């Protein structure tokens, strides 16, 4: 685990999120190591997605705070957090279905400094410089994810696994320092999962970042993550190395003992 890359560490303090009377997160204090791939696990209804939403600004926080490095980002909106380097993927793939893979990925360059709207519209030189830079970034990430050949295909023509990768590419293209992925392997078969893990590992080697992955598959978490956080019913349960967390009796109970009845 290297922190030399400058990827910040992500911290939440006393995070509470309510949907009406329902407490989706209760006083969650977690710390995600800088520059590592962390796994976020827990049975259905544990609050994994809610935690991701709270960190990325998609859910209003009732109490507590979120920090990126030394910066308190609790008051920032979704967009400002993205500009500050926190970019997420969605559990259900959200793409521009009728546009090309390349277009979908290029949207992700929004975080890079873009010329103002008028300069873009009038094709001033700053627009051409930005375009060349964005194309280079998109080309690199498409190559890295093995999507280069599909760059000009429409997204709705692609198989599901590729569409998942397109979303990952959109997240990665601006090299964000904090990457949040919500069940990126959902709906993939065994082979697809292994490929995805390999891709993410490779991406992480090329672009050091603090990566958080919500995942159910124990094997995948073990092979991908160097750190794991377990949640249960909206509360923090355990953190540590994969071996420590999966070896924990409480985690096993929450995960395997009543996983079937925990759909909240």
């Amino acid at each position: 685990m290297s922190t030399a890359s400058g990827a910040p560490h992500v911290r939440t303090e006393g995070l509470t999120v309510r949907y009406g009377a329902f407490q989706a997160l209760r006083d969650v204090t977690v710390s995600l190591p800088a520059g590592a791939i962390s796994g976020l696990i827990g049975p259905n209804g544990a609050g994994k997605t809610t935690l991701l939403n709270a960190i990325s600004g998609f859910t209003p926080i009732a109490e507590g705070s979120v920090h990126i490095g030394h910066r308190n980002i609790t008051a920032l909106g979704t967009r400002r957090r993205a500009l500050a380097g926190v970019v997420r993927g969605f559990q259900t793939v959200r793409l521009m279905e009728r546009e090309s893979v390349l277009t979908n990925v290029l949207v992700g360059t929004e975080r890079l400094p873009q010329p103002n709207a008028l300069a873009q519209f009038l094709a001033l030189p700053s627009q051409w410089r930005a375009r060349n830079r964005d194309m280079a970034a998109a080309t690199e990430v498409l190559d890295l994810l093995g999507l280069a050949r599909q760059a000009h295909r429409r997204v709705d023509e692609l198989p599901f696994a590729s569409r998942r990768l397109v979303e990952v590419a959109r997240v990665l293209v601006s090299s964000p320092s904090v990457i949040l992925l919500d069940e990126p392997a959902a709906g993939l078969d065994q082979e697809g999962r292994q490929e995805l893990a390999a891709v993410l590992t490779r991406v992480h080697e090329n672009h050091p970042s603090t990566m958080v992955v919500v995942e159910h598959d124990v094997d995948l978490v073990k092979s991908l993550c160097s750190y794991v956080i377990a949640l249960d019913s909206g509360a923090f349960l355990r953190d540590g190395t994969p071996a420590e967390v999966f070896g924990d009796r409480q985690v096993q109970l929450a995960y395997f003992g009543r996983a079937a009845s925990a759909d909240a």
Partner: protein
Amino acid sequence: MGDLGQILLGGVTTGSLYALFLLGVLIVFQVSKSMNFAYGQVGMIAAFSAWFFYSEQGLPVPVALMIGVLLAVIVNSAIDFAAIRRIPAGRPGLDLVVTLGIFLLITAVMQQLIDANAHTFVSLGADTRTEVAGVVVSMSDGIVIGLTVVTVLAAYLLLNRTSLGTSLRASAEDAGIAQAAGVNVRALRTATWAVAGLIAAVVAILVASRLSVDAFYMTPFLIKAFIAGMIGGLDRFWLPLVVAVALGVYESLAVYLLGASAGTPAVFLLIIVVLALVPKRFVNERNEVRA
């Protein structure tokens, strides 16, 4: 004060018509999450064809009105049955586009079948007047306000106090679950459209009896009702209806204070100011389902 009282009465009556009309928009929006841009024209069908049947074809007025109302109910149900149901998922806003086409179609067809001119409509009590405390009240005013109050209350009770209302709200919340619980969601939706058609027909006939009838007269009316719904929120019940009545009063006051032509800019100014000042979370509809 007699003048002002007269203005207020006029405003409340117009506002009640907006509110009653908006009630039809609300129930459709809440049950099928769709907006019907052709809604005013559905009402126009009722009034215009009723005029045609009694004036040009010599049918008795009540029969002609019944035929008109029936036509409106059939057309509005048909819009749901033939178009709204068939909108593919994942294309938000298409309901407005499709009903915009139907709006154009109905207008053109009615112009073609009858004509493009304005005609006076049977008065339905607009001529029977009495004076109460210095304010001239027509029977039509009484009918409009009374009918609006009764209908709105009936709708409220139906939605909140009966099992039918529960089924309706359930299918609005989650069609899949309601379907699984044995509610025939599709039929219920089309039935809602039929009821909305009835409301549109009644309002359009009342409006025609107070003004005149042609192929276009409901459009300004539709715009104002939509505006009231937009300010009050289409997923609420009481607030948009109150806003509709208030809009009628506001409009009458603007006309009274600033002259006959001040209504349109006053309404436009109101929307811009309201939308600019009211906080976003208050006026916005429910957001896209969160991730």
